[in-house]
């Protein structure tokens, strides 16, 4: 109309999707962040990758996983005939003699599934490996995105069943930790550096397991009226407190489980002897 002054038109660039979609502010750069946004996803990817490499090697090795009284958490419970015998330990030959490869594979499926579908690890690998997104307000490289609406990612919804499975696994690791108070001749009343490593590990494993979002939901989060379920309300509050540190617990328990395995490996392969406290 009467006063129409045309607005400035300076930058025109070939339009594409996402932040460059038609109608949005014409800015060619996929992002304008000036901080080191790539550091977090890079560190995450490096950390996860290191664990994957280490755990794959150890899981398929099928050796040096038992040094009485310590059993590597990767191999507990040990459920095939080819397991090293552990007196009083968690080895039951459920799978019999036909199982040829490392017995770790049988049991590792459960903790692996638990962590793979964990709400924190999902964030970590979606960002770190998939770059979906690499960081906040940094454009992702993918043309299409359907998130967790389709197979296979829709399977993430079964996280809670892995949580159920994680509880007996944590229970068995607790049993292992108790057994670590025996000495190499299976006499009670021992404590070595390995025992300490196992205690720290099991505390972190439990804290991580109970800080799980599914756990928080199941113990109380699903309720509409906390006031009618005071006990579950307190359990929910407890799970919530742990849940706020879910990321921290995910990493520390990941490190501690690898460390516990490494410790057993070093003792079993004779690199050093377990220092004994009493």
């Amino acid at each position: 109309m009467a006063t129409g002054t045309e607005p400035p038109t300076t930058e025109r660039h070939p339009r594409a999707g996402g932040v460059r979609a038609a109608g949005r502010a014409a800015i060619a750069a996929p992002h304008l962040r000036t901080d080191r946004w790539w550091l977090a996803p890079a560190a995450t990817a490096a950390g996860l990758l290191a664990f994957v490499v280490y755990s794959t090697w150890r899981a398929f090795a099928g050796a040096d996983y038992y040094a009485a009284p310590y059993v590597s958490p990767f191999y507990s419970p040990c459920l095939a005939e080819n397991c090293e015998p552990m007196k009083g330990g968690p080895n039951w030959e459920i799978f019999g003699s036909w199982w040829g490869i490392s017995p770790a594979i049988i049991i590792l499926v459960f903790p692996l599934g638990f962590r793979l579908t964990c709400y924190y690890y999902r964030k970590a690998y979606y960002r770190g490996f998939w770059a979906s997104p690499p960081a906040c307000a940094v454009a992702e490289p993918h043309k299409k995105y359907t998130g967790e609406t389709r197979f296979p990612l829709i399977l993430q919804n079964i996280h809670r069943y892995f949580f159920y499975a994680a509880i007996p696994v944590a229970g068995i690791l607790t049993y292992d930790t108790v057994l670590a108070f025996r000495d190499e001749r299976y006499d009670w009343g021992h404590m070595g550096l390995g025992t300490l490593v196992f205690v720290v590990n099991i505390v972190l494993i439990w804290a991580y397991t109970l800080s799980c979002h599914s756990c928080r939901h199941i113990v109380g989060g699903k309720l509409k009226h906390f006031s009618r379920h005071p006990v579950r309300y307190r359990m929910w509050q407890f799970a919530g407190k742990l849940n706020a540190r879910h990321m921290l617990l995910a990493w520390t328990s990941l490190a501690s489980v690898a460390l516990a395995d490494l410790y057993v490996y070093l003792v079993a392969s004779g690199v050093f002897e377990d220092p004994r406290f009493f």
Partner: protein
Amino acid sequence: MSGYEARFKVWRGDAHGGGLEDFRVEVNEGEVVLDIIHRLQATQAPDLAVRWNCKAGKCGSCSAEINGRPRLMCMTRMSVFTREETVTVTPLRAFPVVRDLVTDVGFNYRKAREVPAFVPPAGVGPGEYRMMQEDVDRSQEFRKCIECFLCQDTCHVVRDHEENKAAFAGPRFLMRIAELDMHPLDAAAESGVDRKRTAQDEHGLGYCNITKCCTEVCPEGIKITDNALIPLKERAVDRKYDPLVWLGSKIRRRSSAG
């Protein structure tokens, strides 16, 4: 501390095009980015379009992207930048631009309408509502939302994929569903609306891959992902992913397809 002259880059233009414009502008102690934008308006660019209102972080109007990060201009203090740093201010990049720093946030208002409203419980009159504090705590956290739409802006589901806007309500409105589903007296279920199921079937909860950018940018510090989105996903699982029910429906679909 005395004032200094800062370098600014401000995006100017409209839906047809535009670009970053350079400014040098005075900055004084204690000022926020919005003060500087206002100074530009008053001294160098009187028609610089910017949306703002309360200037105290309570209304959620002055959302923009500052050095590439979605933020409220009124809550971004100049002291977080060094004097040498160039401060770049652009409009929100997930929504169509109107002019300069103003974007068309109509997407959010459309989504707001698609979430079925609170359903009052039958037979409970005004003044008869009894709710315990512990039962309203969760929803109260979500009601702190000032609707700045920074979470909607940063969420890659729609920011990077325009085509997902139809199917995905975005963190703010998924949180609204969680708020209502956790409201101790909401009677949607009795009226035939299953908020847990519709969160996934109609509002696109499955698109969320819980990468937490919404939580990172929330100026109110609401734990959107941990307290709203994930609990909502778990509630949807209650309804839809009981494994036997799920397997059954898969098999049925397979056989009917084959």
